[in-house]
């Protein structure tokens, strides 16, 4: 029995590796996704263009402008002399923020009166604008604290010392790359499985498989294990790339990562087999896989946190295997997550895997008859 199973698995692996279409899927999308996401998918805000309208004639206004210019976040700090220019710079997206320093800024500071700076931001890009606002607020607050200390005024705003755990410089790549490992494992596990049964039915070889001297569960295992192995192989490549090329630290145990990776892939392979059994052609299988991948990726916390979703939508993510595996990959890489914490995520993952595999086996058996 085991020899038969091994033979079937070898055949399945060979089919995937020899079929030019499968080869394209195995190499093209993962590679492009890695490059595009690692280099372009960043919510960091750098090289920011701002305009400054300084109506203050004193030293304080100039000093504040100098501090903004000195911050590495800002690429250009362009002075304007007219509120209309300020308006059009934001309208035309030439600047994301405009700083307006009032005519009494220096005088107010010296006299110990509240001095205010008006910051206008482009709400069309509200996320980036909020982060720029944070940077500018920090600069202004720091400036005022220093000025007050210098002038021996009573300090009123506490100085905030920020520390970022797990990622001291808030390097966005450290966030993307571990997440990408989970995404690629899902993509490969799903597509390879989804194509396999659909391909046999398109080519008409599915009937041959049915009459072959194999039990149904052997065929099932033969269809499930190869995508799992290929998925793990891809995962390994990306783990190596993450550590060697992108220098993301691994603080937890690789063993935990792989153990939960197997459970995650089992859940994904179940979904893939389900789709595959439903579809008559490879084209349909690809579209079906896309229909699953889009919501699974967007509702997983890969791009934006689950906590930001409306409360009624959050429970939906509980059935999404990617959600749990993302916590594990990021946890193992950056946080050095303990076995107990990882187990808290693998348990629901295992439950989902049992469900998807059972459903897939049921549908697959139905197709065999």
């Amino acid at each position, binding site marked *: 029995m085991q020899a038969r199973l091994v033979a079937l698995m070898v055949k399945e692996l060979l089919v995937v590796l020899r079929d030019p279409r499968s080869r394209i899927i195995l190499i093209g999308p993962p590679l492009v996704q890695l490059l595009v996401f690692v280099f372009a998918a960043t919510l960091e805000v750098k090289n920011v263009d701002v305009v400054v309208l300084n109506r203050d004639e004193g030293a304080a206004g100039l000093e504040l402008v100098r501090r903004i210019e000195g911050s590495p976040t800002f690429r250009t700090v362009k002075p304007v002399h007219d509120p209309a220019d300020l308006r059009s710079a934001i309208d035309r997206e030439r600047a994301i923020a405009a700083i307006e320093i009032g005519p009494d800024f220096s005088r107010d500071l010296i006299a110990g009166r509240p001095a205010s*700076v008006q910051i206008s931001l482009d709400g069309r*890009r*509200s996320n980036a604008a909020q*982060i720029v606002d944070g940077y500018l607020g920090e600069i202004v607050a720091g400036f005022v604290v220093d000025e*007050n200390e210098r002038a021996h005024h009573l300090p009123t*705003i506490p100085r905030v010392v920020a520390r970022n755990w797990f990622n001291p410089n808030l390097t966005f790549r450290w966030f993307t790359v571990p997440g990408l490992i989970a995404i690629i494992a899902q993509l490969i596990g799903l597509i390879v499985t989804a194509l396999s049964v659909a391909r046999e039915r398109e080519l008409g070889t599915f009937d041959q498989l049915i009459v072959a001297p194999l039990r149904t569960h052997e065929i099932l295992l033969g269809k499930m294990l190869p995508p799992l192995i290929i998925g793990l192989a891809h995962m390994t490549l990306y783990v190596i790339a993450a550590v060697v090329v992108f220098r993301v630290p691994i603080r937890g145990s690789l063993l935990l990562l792989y153990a939960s990776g197997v459970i995650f892939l089992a859940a994904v392979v179940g979904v893939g087999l389900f789709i595959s059994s439903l579809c008559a052609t490879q084209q349909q299988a690809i*579209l079906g896989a896309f229909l699953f991948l889009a919501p699974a990726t967007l509702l997983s916390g890969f791009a934006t946190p689950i906590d930001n979703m409306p409360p009624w939508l959050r429970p939906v993510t509980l059935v999404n295997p990617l959600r749990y595996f993302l916590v594990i990959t990021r946890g193992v890489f950056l946080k050095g997550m303990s076995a107990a914490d990882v187990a*808290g995520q693998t348990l629901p993952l295992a439950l989902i895997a049992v469900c998807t595999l059972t459903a897939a086996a049921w549908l697959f058996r139905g197709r065999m008859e």
Partner: protein
Amino acid sequence: MTSPARATRAPARATTGVLTGPASAPERPFSPLVRGRRLAALIVKEARQIVRDPSSILIAFVLPLILLFLFGYGVSLDATRTRIGIVLESPSPSSRELAAAFQASPYFDARVGTDRRAFEEPLVQGAIGGIVVVPVTFDRDLRIRSKAPELQVIVDGSDPNTAALVQGYVQGVIAIWAGLRSVEAGREGGEAGGQERFWFNPARTSRFFLVPGSVAIVMALVGTLLTALVVAREWERGTIEALMATPVTRVELLAGKIVPYYLLGLASMALCTIVSVYLFDVPFRGSAFALFAISSAFLLPALGQGLLISAGTKNQFLASQLALLSSFLPTFVLSGFIFEIGSMPPVIQAICQIVPARWLIPSLQTVFLAGDLWPMFLKNIGVMVLYGLVFLALALRTTGKRLA
């Protein structure tokens, strides 16, 4: 690939072979009237084909609604009510006041403790997003008033975007607290907070820029993926070669494809706009004409790309992969939809410039949130039309090679 497929293709090729000679010659003798009727007939034929094909309806209307729903509800960059821990190392009236300010803030869901170790484990698990530590020295520094008291903020850097936002919100809460204190003390302190104002989107709702952006993704899907898939299927089945055997010219052939898919693209755009405005409450401050002009300009390169991919691959499978990688993915990542182009490395920034959606998304966000801003629209429309002409010319050339 398969033998049945080859069997259906073979006769088609044979017919082409016979008719190629006479077919390419009579491009002149027809009067403009006949040509116009011929083109109209082609367009009607293509339109019927779309209406009868369930996969077209799926990609043009069902998929857009699913995507819009996901982007409208599922994807949000607004960190509202982030769970944080406040550590009061030596509780005092003023530090309790500060803690109360955090608890009152709409941005935080704050729990108060006296030992930071109690919050460290939840931070690792991701159960909380940050810890604000009010150190023992805080009260003393506040009383002595010789130097500014210090506060420590520890955030979960494994999600850098939320971490940066939380830092900003903490700063905001502290500024408000300090302002209230000086008012209560009856003195006007020398503090100067930045008073910020978010134009076009005062509540900073990320949905307001994500939803117009996802309209662009939908148009890229319909324009490029759907066109590439369906036209590639015709190449695969040989029905295009059959069409070429008729007196139809290449330009007419392409125009016959472009017009129905252009209308389909506009229809899904209109559907998405209605859903955005009525379901997601995204403001629409520009004019419908501006939206129509911008979308039309974008559909030109999108359709051109789809036709080029289908004519280049002549294979549904390759076409779908190429369309996803060269249109869907760049529209998502390289267009400024979520990720700021200015923050990317220079090489990637240069690549972004040739992505048509990069010129669409700012215009869409402006027409929804800011209003009509023609100097910006005209420039972006010009660039998109230019890309469209390049793609269409390439598609025409690729289609032509096959005829020779």
